[in-house]
């Protein structure tokens, strides 16, 4: 297993060269810093699947690049390779066998990156920036699903330049997740659509949003039998909705909770409400992590309906997160997400990706 040896050693020392000389608020949790992070905001992170040995992390950024690092068991990160798009990269995903990485970009294309040969080839084309990309592995087919701001969801066999299927969405795709045989897409104007992927992808149900604000991130969770059974949806209003597809008692089973807000008990000052930038479920425990514009990450147990932990505040928003395939590593990226507009963007500010040992902190709370 890839347990980190020492959290202490690498945390602040990190790459040594930069930053800890000043204040430590860029890494208050003293987590391991990934070496050679991208030069602009990190939009997405993805760990390699269990089918290949070791842990490889890929991250896409607004600097148009997607980078790959190997994460070794002792916590060392080794930059491995990099590829470019001609526009900011918005999403990345791995193929199920770990040999390919798929990247989606504002340049309206998606590429397949063969890691062994280090070659890329374009596999998709949209009429607007592609916001999400997921690999679907079904018993009778495999394909790539791309969601774009051009309001279409397209499915691609990577060998052909034309999509296998194209589904129209009511609005621009903002986020999506796939756990076969279910796919969920959240769009602008609070749209929410569930697709079923058996035989071939088709729209299953349009759901009225449980949230009142713009959708920002979504993640599917599974039941005890490892079947997708619902999803967590985050909005820009510091709130996450847990929604089951077919619960026995929707009124009781579905709920929302507030998160990523500044001190609420002090009613003298208005509470600051931050966007939830990403949600990830722990692959083993089923507990979830949320990261927000407030620069914190939190771990939650949705079954016990309790919070497990909230981190200290980083000096930048946290824009992306993900767990590795066995749940031992939690990766999160600290970079500007534009939540305060253009004025607060500082191109000189360093962006970080941190790795944290997640084996213990995400254990579910024992239900009363």
């Amino acid at each position: 297993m890839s347990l980190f040896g020492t959290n202490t050693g690498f945390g602040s020392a990190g790459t040594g060269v930069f930053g800890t000389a000043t204040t430590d608020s860029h890494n208050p949790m003293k987590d391991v810093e990934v070496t050679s992070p991208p030069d602009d905001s990190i939009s997405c992170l993805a760990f390699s699947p269990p089918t290949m040995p070791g842990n490889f992390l890929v991250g896409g950024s607004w600097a148009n690049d997607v980078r790959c690092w190997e994460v070794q068991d002792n916590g060392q990160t080794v930059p491995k390779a990099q590829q470019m798009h001609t526009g900011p990269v918005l999403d990345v995903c791995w193929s199920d066998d770990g040999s390919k990485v798929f990247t989606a970009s504002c340049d309206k294309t998606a590429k397949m990156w063969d890691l062994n040969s280090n070659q890329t080839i374009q596999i998709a084309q949209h009429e607007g920036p592609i916001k999400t990309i997921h690999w679907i592995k079904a018993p009778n087919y495999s394909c790539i699903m791309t969601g774009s701001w051009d309001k279409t969801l397209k499915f691609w066999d990577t060998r052909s330049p034309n999509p296998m299927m194209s589904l129209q969405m009511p609005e621009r795709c903002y986020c999506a997740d796939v756990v076969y045989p279910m796919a969920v897409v959240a769009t602008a104007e609070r749209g929410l659509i569930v697709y079923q992927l058996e035989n071939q992808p088709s729209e299953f149900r349009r759901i009225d949003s449980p949230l009142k604000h713009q959708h920002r991130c979504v993640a599917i969770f599974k039941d005890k039998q490892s079947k997708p059974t619902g999803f967590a949806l985050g909005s820009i209003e510091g709130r996450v909705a847990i929604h089951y597809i077919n619960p026995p008692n929707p009124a009781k089973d579905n709920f929302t909770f507030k998160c990523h807000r500044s001190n609420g008990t002090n009613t003298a000052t208005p509470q600051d409400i931050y966007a939830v930038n990403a949600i990830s479920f722990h692959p083993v425990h089923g507990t979830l992590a949320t990261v927000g514009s407030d620069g914190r990450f939190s771990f939650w147990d949705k079954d016990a309906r309790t919070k497990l932990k909230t981190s200290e505040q980083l000096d930048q928003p946290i824009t992306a997160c993900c767990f590795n395939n066995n749940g031992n590593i939690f990766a999160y990226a600290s970079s500007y997400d534009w939540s305060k507009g253009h004025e607060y963007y500082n191109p000189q500010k360093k962006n970080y990706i941190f790795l944290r040992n997640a084996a213990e902190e995400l254990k579910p709370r024992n239900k009363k």
Partner: protein
Amino acid sequence: MGRKKKKQMKPWCWYCNRDFDDEKILIQHQKAKHFKCHICHKKLYTGPGLAIHCMQVHKETIDGVPNAIPGRTDIELEIYGMEGIPEKDMEERRRVLEQKTQENQKKRQNQDDSDEDDEDEEAGPSFQQPASTVPPQPAYAPMTQPGMAPVPAPGMPHGSYSGMPPMMPGVPPMMPGMPPVMPGMHPGMMPMSGMMPPTHGMPPMMPGMPPGIPPPMGHHPGLPHMAQALPTTTRPAMPATTVSTPQPSVSKPLFPSAGQVQQAGSGVAVSASAPPSAAPKPTFPAYNQSSTAAAANPSSTVAKPGTPVTSKPATLTTTSATSKLIHPDEDISLEELRAQLPRYQCKSPSAGQAHISSPPVAAMGGVLPPQQGIPAQQPGVRHPMQGPYGAPPQAVPGYVPGGMPPYGQAPPMVPPYQAAPPRPAIGMRPPVMSPGGRY
């Protein structure tokens, strides 16, 4: 004394066996003596409520109910007033009371001047007031108001719940049998308050909503294509078929935070009715406008219902006295806002350009083609990559799982800007100044 109804005895406290004239007084007693937090003195409503409060707020566990007699300290029993008392304890109490009266009677018989006692005895039972439902209600009344507010604030695209029926049919389902089932609410409330770390006062309101709100998730008869989409083969994971029970009237799930309430409601409702396509057009303001708006305080335009000017009401409304949304005014996503900037415009008209056709500006390497040999992706071959540009971005020494030459000897990933003066556009950090050359 216990003539007709089972619970019809003088209210008594299960925790300490004291008698009271009135259930209201009994409840006040319980809150003050048994359900009061020893740390902050907050009065809760039940034993489990107190336990959860101590855990979440003070991170302390308590083993039993304070000031309770031995045997009656169970913190997990949900007792409120006279409700929730286990049946066997009720019977035991009745027996004890009967015994006492019998004893009294015996004594009286033995005594000569017992008339006064008799009168007192009989007068007692007749004072019983059910009144059990009275106290709880006021406690929950405050919940209803904010609860009602969001109901008319549907923003449901499908006019079926245009917020009209809302209140009436809306309310009962939201508080499903609240008064009668009060203790029942608590389990529903408490666990969820775990998700709302901040306030004490809030939890009662928030968690109150979800249980009662049967979101009409996807149960719209008006979308026939859904049904068609379900092939006849059974799908274990998505047992859709006849979807579940049709939802009653209540539309909008949401529980607003204290501030949002009506404004969010009206804004969303109106904007939702407008055709979605109308929105995107005006919401892509000129670049400058967005920047000024962003930092500016959003509280200005507040509820501008219907006019999808530059900003949709949805984002603005949450600025209230109690909360402020840290997000630019426009209702478009942060990525869309950012992608509008010239510096993030795509380097080449990628439309249809399959494969990597090394666009001139593409990657850093592009600047000094000859030396580097290769602009972006193409080669991916082992490439010495020494060039002045350092090893930058290129796809470096292949990817061979299992230990490799570290990323390109080179220096840092941070391409030192010193190299290559003529640097039209780098893709990494295009100097915002230079216009043109980017597209």
